[in-house]
């Protein structure tokens, strides 16, 4: 249940969504993806989202749910091809195989093309699904914890991919847990709790705000590394201290 939600999100902007578990981040993403009904108004390109056809949505918004396995042994290439669904004919023809291999290559998964998706590891799956989203080529992306199954190297590659998408004018809405990742990537973050957005704005400002500390029960300490970049280090608040801050 989400309440009193207001906000906007521009082309070429990466919006970070943070909050404790169960705060409504994934619900917000599912609503935007058209998977859940909503009351009120959500507009995309000045059109009300709920009234649009599935194909219209698919060309505007793509959605990567949080870790989701596949039960049907389609090959990775077939799955990526399905990303082009809104551009294909009813029988699934008319898609571009070159696009499929380009997308797989872009995420470093060209070697997986012929493999059954039921036999992939978590990180491999995540890359196949990113390739699928690339093939869908929507104007806005909804990503639910895209880094969760990835190792460090893959996470950095992912950051590059997101930046590249931003350069292309795509809008990204990303659910994140890693604050430093959010600071490096997002121009704006929203912090949610109990279905409301309690803080929003520039990541550095938001993370230092008392609301943030209250929501997460942490206190931020800032370090500087040798290059002069700042690093946030959250510290657990004891119950006493947290009542002090109120």
């Amino acid at each position, binding site marked *: 249940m989400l309440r009193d939600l207001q906000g906007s999100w521009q082309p070429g902007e990466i919006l970070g969504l943070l909050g404790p578990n169960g705060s409504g981040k994934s619900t917000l993403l599912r609503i935007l993806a058209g998977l859940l009904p909503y009351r009120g108004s959500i507009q995309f390109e000045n059109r009300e989202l709920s009234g649009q056809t599935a194909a219209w949505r698919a060309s505007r918004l793509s959605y990567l749910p949080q870790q989701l396995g596949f039960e049907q042994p389609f090959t990775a290439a077939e799955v990526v091809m399905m990303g082009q669904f809104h551009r294909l004919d*009813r029988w699934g023809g008319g898609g571009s195989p070159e696009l499929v291999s380009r997308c797989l290559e872009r995420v470093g998964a060209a070697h997986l093309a012929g493999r059954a998706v039921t036999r992939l590891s978590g990180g491999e799956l995540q890359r196949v699904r990113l390739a699928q989203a690339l093939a869908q080529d929507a104007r806005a992306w909804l990503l639910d914890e895209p880094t969760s199954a990835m190792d460090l190297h893959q996470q950095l590659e992912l950051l590059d991919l997101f930046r590249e998408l931003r350069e292309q004018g795509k809008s990204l809405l990303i659910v994140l847990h890693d604050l430093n990742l959010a600071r490096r990537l997002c121009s704006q973050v929203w912090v949610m709790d109990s279905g409301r957005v309690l803080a929003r704005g520039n990541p550095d400002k938001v993370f230092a705000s008392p609301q943030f500390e209250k929501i997460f029960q942490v206190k931020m300490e800032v370090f500087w590394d040798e290059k002069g970049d700042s690093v946030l280090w959250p510290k657990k608040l004891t119950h006493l201290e947290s009542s002090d801050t109120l």
Partner: protein
Amino acid sequence: MRSWLLLGGLALLGLVTLGLCSGSYSLSLSQVWNVLLQGPGESPENVVVWQLRLPRLLQAILVGACLSTAGAAFQSLLRSPLADPYLTGTSAGASLGTALAVVLGLNYGLYPVCAFAGALGAVLLVTRLARIRQGVRLEDFLLAGVMVSTLLGSLVSLLMVLAGRELSRLVFFLLGNLSGSNWLLLGWCLAPFVLGTGLLVWNAYPLNLLSLGEDLAAPAGVAVERVKLQVLLAATLLTASAVASSGLVGFVGLVIPHLCRLWVGPDMRKLLPLALVWGGVFLLGCDWLTRLAPQELPVGVVTALVGAPWFLWQLQRERKC
């Protein structure tokens, strides 16, 4: 996939020829051929071929194809290899329709109509029950299917007790039986078959996406609710027409789509034509076997007797690969 389809086509041709030439009325291949060229007529040979064997063979193919494609659709839609066209309450509904017709003493010709109405009624009830929130959740659908089947099944048992001497008809119906085939029944079956398979083919590619999960299909542009509804409707039509004409022939709808999936993978665009052909082949073969026995057996018994070991053998082989 091509070769499997071709093989299926050849098997159909062979089994039809075999079926036309075997039965308790002995006819040679050339006699059968001559009678076929003559067209329908009055002689005993002619009646045997045109009124008994031919409609029965076509009915076996049609029913096999109906059940098998319906099974393929349900397995893909419900993402469960154990899904069976009967789990949505169609079988129980059709049984209840027939049982009512028997108990009320309706004309024999009305039995398929009653069975069909019962099957559709049951599925509508299941869909209504599963539609608690917006859209049909498949888990709810399965649950409602099981509950409605159980409920209707007990009503059938009640009617069976009341049916008394007419019981044998019901028993035959419940075992699945092709011996009542005729052209009229075949005609009745054809329209739902064309409509049902047409709808399934129309939704084959969207079903591929749907089988990956609704969370993936909807954002990719699949009109999920419409596809689900159309597929459910199509599969129900197919099952209902099969059940109405030939009773409860088990196993075809479970095993054949499963085997076809082992052969060509999960792509519905390949799976549907293959299931269609092989469903026909399987039931035709089983029906031929029923006529080899000294006493004609209900075909439903043979499908299970043949189907189960074959299925297990295939699974075993798949494991080893």
